């Protein structure tokens, strides 16, 4: 066997099995912080698989977005919220028969799908990657032309999410004292000082 075909195969099985084992550990780990750490490991393995497919941009995106933002956010939430995860898992045995049945049906479905799958004859990726063009260039060529509508619509979805988040969390409290720099600068001794002529022996009432 050629070393050129063996090495990618070894790398694939290494990353794929790491991803599967870590995904399993996410579910069964007792400590929620470990679950999140295993989730990060799963993302890394998936990113490595993307690199092997030649999709280096997606791989980086996965690491930056999911590991850098989403998983770290999860970690903070898990650590900040005092949720008793052991108690949450109490019903595990109770739901096992139904859950197991569903998992079994899904597994059978996946096996059926896997065995019947064949690449469609006229199959071509919607935008074939040209040889000698890097991922980012390929994205750049279509993002604002063929996919302009999807891009703009996705941007509007993010706007809706932003409006929603502000609408649900912004609390307009009355009587909050805020710093107003121009007011502070415009303030003169006249506004701030009051000279009172105190008569001896009487004091201020």
């Amino acid at each position: 066997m050629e070393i050129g075909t063996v090495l990618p195969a070894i790398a694939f099985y290494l990353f794929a099995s790491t991803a599967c084992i870590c995904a399993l550990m996410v579910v069964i780990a007792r400590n929620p912080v470990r679950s999140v750490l295993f989730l990060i490991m799963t993302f890394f393995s998936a990113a490595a698989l993307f690199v092997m497919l030649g999709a280096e941009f997606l791989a980086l995106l996965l690491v930056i977005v999911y590991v850098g933002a989403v998983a770290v956010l999860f970690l903070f939430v898990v650590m900040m919220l005092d949720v008793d995860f052991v108690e949450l898992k109490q019903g595990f045995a109770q739901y096992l028969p139904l859950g197991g049945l569903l998992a079994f049906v899904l597994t059978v479905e996946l096996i059926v799908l896997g065995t019947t799958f064949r690449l469609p004859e006229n199959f071509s990726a919607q935008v074939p990657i040209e040889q000698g063009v890097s991922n980012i260039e390929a994205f750049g060529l279509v993002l604002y032309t063929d996919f302009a509508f999807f891009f703009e619509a996705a941007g509007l979805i993010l706007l809706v999410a932003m409006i929603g988040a502000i609408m649900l969390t912004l609390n307009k409290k009355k009587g909050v004292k805020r710093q107003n720099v121009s007011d502070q600068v415009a303030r003169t001794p006249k506004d701030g000082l009051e000279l009172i002529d105190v008569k001896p022996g009487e004091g201020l009432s």
Partner: protein
Amino acid sequence: MTDLVFNISLMLPEVFLVLSALILLLLGAFGGRKMTSTVNLAAIVVLVVAAGLVLYKIPDEGSKELFAGALKLDYLAVFGKFIALLATAFSLLLAYGYLKTENRLSPEFAILYLFAALGMMIMVSANDLLSLYIGVEMQSLALYVLAASNRDSLRSSESGLKYFVLGALSSGLLLYGASLIYGFSGATRFDGIYEVVANGGSIGLMIGIVFLLCGLAFKVSAAPFHMWTPDVYEGAPTPVTAFFSVAPKIAAIILIARILFEPFLAMIADWQQVIIAISVLSLTVGYLGAIQQKNIKRLMAYSSIANMGYAMIALATGTISGMSGLLFFMVLYLISTLGVFACILAMRRSEGMVEQIEDLAGLSRTKPALALALTILLFSVAGVPPAAGFFGKYFIFVAAVDANLTWLAIYGAVASVVGAFVYLRLVKIIWFDEPAVEFVPVKFSQGAVVALSAVLMLPGAIWLLPALMEWSQTVAASLFLVNG
């Protein structure tokens, strides 16, 4: 580049809606409290104008693909956009009156309605799995926030959260189905999928379409994906509930119809049984659940589940007459439901809103005009003959019998009888029970919607029904003409 400009010019209603929404957003953000009313009223005008622009932009050749096939502008899209925009406009009118009285008016409310309407416009004209998903998400995201918009109410927050979590689950199902369809057909555009399906489908496509249908059935609250409906309808602010039960329903039903009748028509033997199962379950769960309800918003939730059962009967036929019956039925359902919700919004005593069925007792003596209108609307929803709602169900049953689904039509008719009990119980409470404490005078916006819908459902039906019938037949015929 000229191609892009041409595409955008055909999307005039959408572009107008987006630009207006952005301008109104800025007005609301910088204008302060005094702009709130203006923004809300302007949003209603924008929706009505956009509906007018939709009719103005009908393509000459019947159907036109935009953005390299991402969207499709055909008679079905025009029909769906027009109805969804008008339904949104009337819901926003109801919401405006309600929020003004409650003193909770905010500009974001109207903006979210506008973006939800935009999502629906994308849904009804989707011609690609990607635009399908984008449309569904844009609409749903706005609806999640609207459900939770009353932050001081625990139940509103609960309903928003419940809707969000279960909605995310349904989006997951939808995406899983879409990925299977893409994997087994090699295309995300509907015409590409159509070619593969026409050359003999595969088991992967079948599982894919079933998952896709599950995700979409969730959005129209058809059983067995209805669990969220009663809680969300009860917890959300009442005008938002009114909005939920009209506009998103028509958009999602048209989307389902487009998927089933355009790319997947050749696989009718595979999806027909799924649709029939959903339809039978929806009718059963909807009406049996509605019998036990004491809260009128929960009752309307179960009623909408059951009505989706009728829509599913029409989808199961897979014929032109089924499709035209579906559109006809949906519009009549929309008008009468909106009217019923306007009546529910009028259920206000001096101490606040009430929403128990007993609160309607003796309405005929305290507010005879409202009682008469509500009775007409309830007759229409129940499908009692002189009211327009009867004809909606009638054409669906005829289409089902023609498509050799006689037993399904009979089941639907039997379910209608059970349903009639639910609605006639309300009518009995309104006309024959001892009067409860009187409601405060009806606001103009609510009264207008009630009067308009009631007039359309009974005396105006003579004019409405033939016009609507003709339009829905044209739309259905054009949809099937494309498929040859």
